[in-house]
């Protein structure tokens, strides 16, 4: 097992804030919009340096999506910022008609996704957003795994022409990816090569997958770990190549098991390479209040859940 270490923990949303600021310095057409969450979205640096290109919408997310769609007409590249729940479910039809169907170059940037939002509870913990967004034709869906990858993803989507959903989170988590990485949309990152089982993880679950890989190695199981940061378009080639070698897969995501990364992988495998699969995901449930760690344990998204799923799926191989 390849060794991964970290020296500090940071929130992925701060990676977004730094990436947005840098993208804004590079390209004068980049606009930032928020619905009364400038601080939470880490947009202060951008807003302070480019006050004319920062749009405070107020608490009106539907209007924000529409304004962002309109701003593309004339060449601007709007980045909208609010929590994942208010970025997707609240404004689904606005995104569907004014952004996706109209194919506008809007970047929908969403923090506080998943359970790790913590104490605010289920009203704010959306676990359905990946599903909602990936069902929209033409929408790119990205869920980076740490501060550095989120910054790199933010810079990458600024240069991509078309609608994007960028999902990140609130808690401080290990920073373990390369600070100078080149982020390629739709390209999986091979975290660790192995032969016994493939572990595919996205977002906050990638570090847990690495921890699980270490525990499995101690048990004599050689796990291949793949980071799928881009859920759509899915890197089908990387997944199929891995499954041809390992023959089974565990998918890991901080999302409902319905509609998420796991289902995208299952759809691919069912049609191309039928293989045993286990899902480490929320089991069709809303969340609740608690600390991020408590919630990840209660809803079965811990390192141990990945280890157990890997052992189970290996036994299911013919």
């Amino acid at each position, binding site marked *: 097992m390849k060794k991964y270490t970290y020296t500090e923990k940071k929130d992925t949303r701060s990676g977004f804030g730094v990436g947005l600021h840098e993208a804004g310095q590079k390209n004068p057409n980049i*606009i930032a919009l928020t619905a009364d969450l400038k601080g939470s979205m880490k947009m202060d640096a951008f807003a302070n340096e480019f006050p*004319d*290109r920062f*749009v405070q*919408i*107020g608490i*009106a997310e*539907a*209007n*924000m*999506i*529409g*304004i*962002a*769609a*309109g*701003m*593309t*007409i*004339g*060449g*601007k590249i*709007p980045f909208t910022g609010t929590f994942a729940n208010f970025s997707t479910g609240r404004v689904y*039809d*606005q995104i*569907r*008609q*004014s952004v996706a*169907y*109209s*194919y*506008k170059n809007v970047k929908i940037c969403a923090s506080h996704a998943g359970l790790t939002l913590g104490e605010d509870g289920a009203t704010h913990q959306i676990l359905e957003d990946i599903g909602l967004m990936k069902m929209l034709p033409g929408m790119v869906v990205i869920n980076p795994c740490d501060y550095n990858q989120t910054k790199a993803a933010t810079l990458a989507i600024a240069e991509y022409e078309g609608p994007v959903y960028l999902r990140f989170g609130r808690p401080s988590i290990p920073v373990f990816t390369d600070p100078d990485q080149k982020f390629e949309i739709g390209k999986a990152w091979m975290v660790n090569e192995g032969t016994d089982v493939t572990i595919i993880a996205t977002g906050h679950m990638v570090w847990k997958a690495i921890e699980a890989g270490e525990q499995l190695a101690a048990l004599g199981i050689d796990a291949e770990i793949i980071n799928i940061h881009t859920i759509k378009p899915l890197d089908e080639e990387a997944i199929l190549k891995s499954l041809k070698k390992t023959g089974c897969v565990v998918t890991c995501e901080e999302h409902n098991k319905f509609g998420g990364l796991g289902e995208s992988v299952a759809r691919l495998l069912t049609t191309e390479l039928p293989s045993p699969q286990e899902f480490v995901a929320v089991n069709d449930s809303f969340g609740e209040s608690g600390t991020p760690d408590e919630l990840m344990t209660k809803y079965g998204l811990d390192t141990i859940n990945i280890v157990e799923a890997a052992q189970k799926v290996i036994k299911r191989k013919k």
Partner: protein
Amino acid sequence: MKHTINELEDIVSQVRRDIVRMVHGCQSGHPGGSLGCAEFMTALYFETMHHSTDFKMDGIGEDLFFLSNGHISPVFYSVLARSGYFEVSELATFRKLNSRVQGHPTTHEGLPGIRIASGSLGQGMSVAIGAALTKKLNKDHSLVFTLHGDGELQEGQNWEAIMFAPFNKVDNLISTIDYNGQQIDGPTEKVLSLESLQAKFEAFGWHVITSSGNDMGEIVKSLEYAKSLTGKGRPILNLMSTQMGNGVDFMVGSHKWHGTAPNDEQLASALAQNKETLGDY
């Protein structure tokens, strides 16, 4: 003026023919609201707006128009085609398979003149505000026009946009409400009363003007007046009274023609009331 009022009225007569023929041709679509806005849309595209039929999505240096109540697509398509954005013969494909002239306006099939999809109501003003903000950032002094149904104002997103625009001094925006008092289920007064739209918009900080939308002379003047009010720190709201179905006697004033197609006999009657001025498609 680019055209005389008589010339514009002749165009309107042809636009009305296009509308009823398109809806009749596929036995589907929305003639009532389309007919009510025929004068306004003709005035906008043939007189008021500075625009190029060599369509470019970004519309730099051009006035832009957004149709929020996308179901009155027949009048939009007719006016775009008659202006020269695409061949009028394409109107015959309205609502048919493999057409760019979809049931509701869309950018998806690449029809020149359309800059956003609309149909799901209440989204157009937000989009127009975004386009107006971009014009300001680009130091582009042209204007943004919109049209909304009155019933459409029951959608909450409008009021987010109506609150945003004056506070942010979006004064390069002229929004028009098609104030015909009708919606699918009946008169707005019975479905969900709008009460005083003028008082509502004024309370939010808009400069409100009123106009009579089925009088070509008056609507041209009203739009010129609206243009003179731009650049003064406030968005402009043109509260335009119209009659649904205007120009076709048996359709006038009734919500029953909101989304109903005429039969052969009704088509003949509607065409007899509106002379062919520019040649049918």
